[in-house]
């Protein structure tokens, strides 16, 4: 499984330090220590600029408001115009996110580590399966 020479890497927008570290060689990682909702908003702004959403923003069944972490893949370069399915999905995801209040303002370290791991595996499944093909 080798990466195409010279091909631009897809962007991983994440607030999960574990995913940022682990996938640094496979994607253009844009890490920020912000809220899950802010990650969705950053992704939305990319979609508005014409980038395509590659993974579902509501990956996993852990609700927004429970896990603080989110990693989302978007295409490396903006495409020709707006990708409508991407738009619909990201905007509906933000609406959905806003239905869930933050439940745990203080999460113990070991639980944070578990949340990071689950978020990481959700993206790993997608990345390792798809990085060899388009």
């Amino acid at each position, binding site marked *: 499984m080798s990466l195409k020479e010279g091909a631009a890497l897809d962007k991983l927008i994440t607030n999960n330090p574990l995913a940022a570290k682990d996938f640094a060689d496979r994607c253009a990682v844009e890490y920020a220590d912000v809220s899950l909702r802010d990650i969705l908003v950053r992704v939305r702004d990319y979609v508005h600029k014409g980038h395509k959403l590659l993974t579902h923003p509501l990956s996993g069944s852990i609700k927004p408001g429970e896990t603080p972490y989110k990693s989302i893949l978007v295409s490396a370069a903006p495409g020709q115009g707006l990708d409508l399915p991407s738009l619909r999905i990201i905007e509906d995801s933000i609406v959905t996110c806003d239905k869930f209040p933050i439940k745990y303002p203080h999460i113990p370290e070991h639980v944070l580590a578990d949340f990071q791991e689950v978020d990481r595996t959700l993206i790993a499944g997608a990345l390792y399966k*798809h990085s060899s093909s388009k």
Partner: protein
Amino acid sequence: MKLEVGYIDITDIQFSDKASLQDGVLYVDRDAITAMILEDERIRAVELDIAKPGESVRITPVKDVIEPRVKVEGPGEIFPGVLSKVQTVGSGRTHVLRGAAVVTTGKIVGFQEGIIDMTGLGAEYTPFSKTFNLVANFTPVDGLTAHDYENALRLAGLKMAKALGELGREVEPNEVKTYEHLPVMQGAEKYPELPRVGYVQMLQSQGLMHDTYVYGVDMKQSLTTMISPTEVLDGAIISGNCVSACDKNTTYHHLNNPVIHDLFEAHGKTLNFAAMIITNENVYLADKERSSDWTAKLVEYLDLDGVIISQEGFGNPDTDLIMNCKKIEAVGTRTVIITDEYAGRDGTSQSLADADASADAVVTGGNANQVVVLPKLDKVIGTLDYVDKIAGGFENNLQEDGSIVVELQAITGATNELGFNRLSAR
């Protein structure tokens, strides 16, 4: 494929020196089961307990629920590709310990979910308050990764169910039902007047704690495919899904898939249950497009007049559901979808994360955000440590009087999207 299922009604469960099943009473040899579980060196300790309907008992955090079954005649064994070699099941005869269940609990990660109350308000929302449960609470060896632990726990639960099921091998069932799934052409010839109906089951398949296995294969690795519904009754599909307690499908749900049962009940009378299709719910959007394309292709290829589509889990599967529905309607096949809702605690928010005009026939398992107050119960199997941390719990939701305030989403099976329950919403 023709499967006879013999249902043995379980009326009580007790620990005993010797395992047996007599007059509906399931006698469990605690030491033997413990020893069997500890053969897996990843598990350091296990505590076995019993929870019966009506008892003041709360089980949490629940990982999986499994019904004991045994293959009496015909090829393969129960849970093929996982506990036994890969061999096509779904024909011959299978015995079921109806009314009994194995419930697994244990800390896999630092946040977890799944409440089964055997009495009180919570009991009304979970089907497992009505089963006689053998509950296993696991502790792993130190340093075991979450992946390995999930795997160990999943296998342990299946082994327990298989061991209990074995006790019913020679028992005369209370009821025997025959389920027959005909080859496509034969079915069409036999029921030329009846509409051809299919079942599209969407399986959760996203990653750690979010997976489903079919004959041992991780469903996210598979394309949409076909299966005989009788295979499902023999344990071809098992749950590795531990998240979103209210709308995940436990292995028990798969074994007793209500859509399969109700389609079989109508089969030959008002419809011809012609095919079952299984598809996945992956994270990658390209996968979602591909899998739903494939679903619609199979539906068209099988010339189905109508399908029921069931969902599993929260959030992104709404996208798979709508894609499947839209594409299947587009090939001219009528659909009914089964889902649940996250309409907010006051019921006023947008229920689904996706929508389309073609989804005009929806069955709902209810609003998972509805808040319920569960009374203090005398005994807790597992731990309440995570009640604060489970989906649908709130921080500091343990009240002074010992009652807990949770959303329905914390209760195992409460808003099931196979249509297992009577709960609905308008």
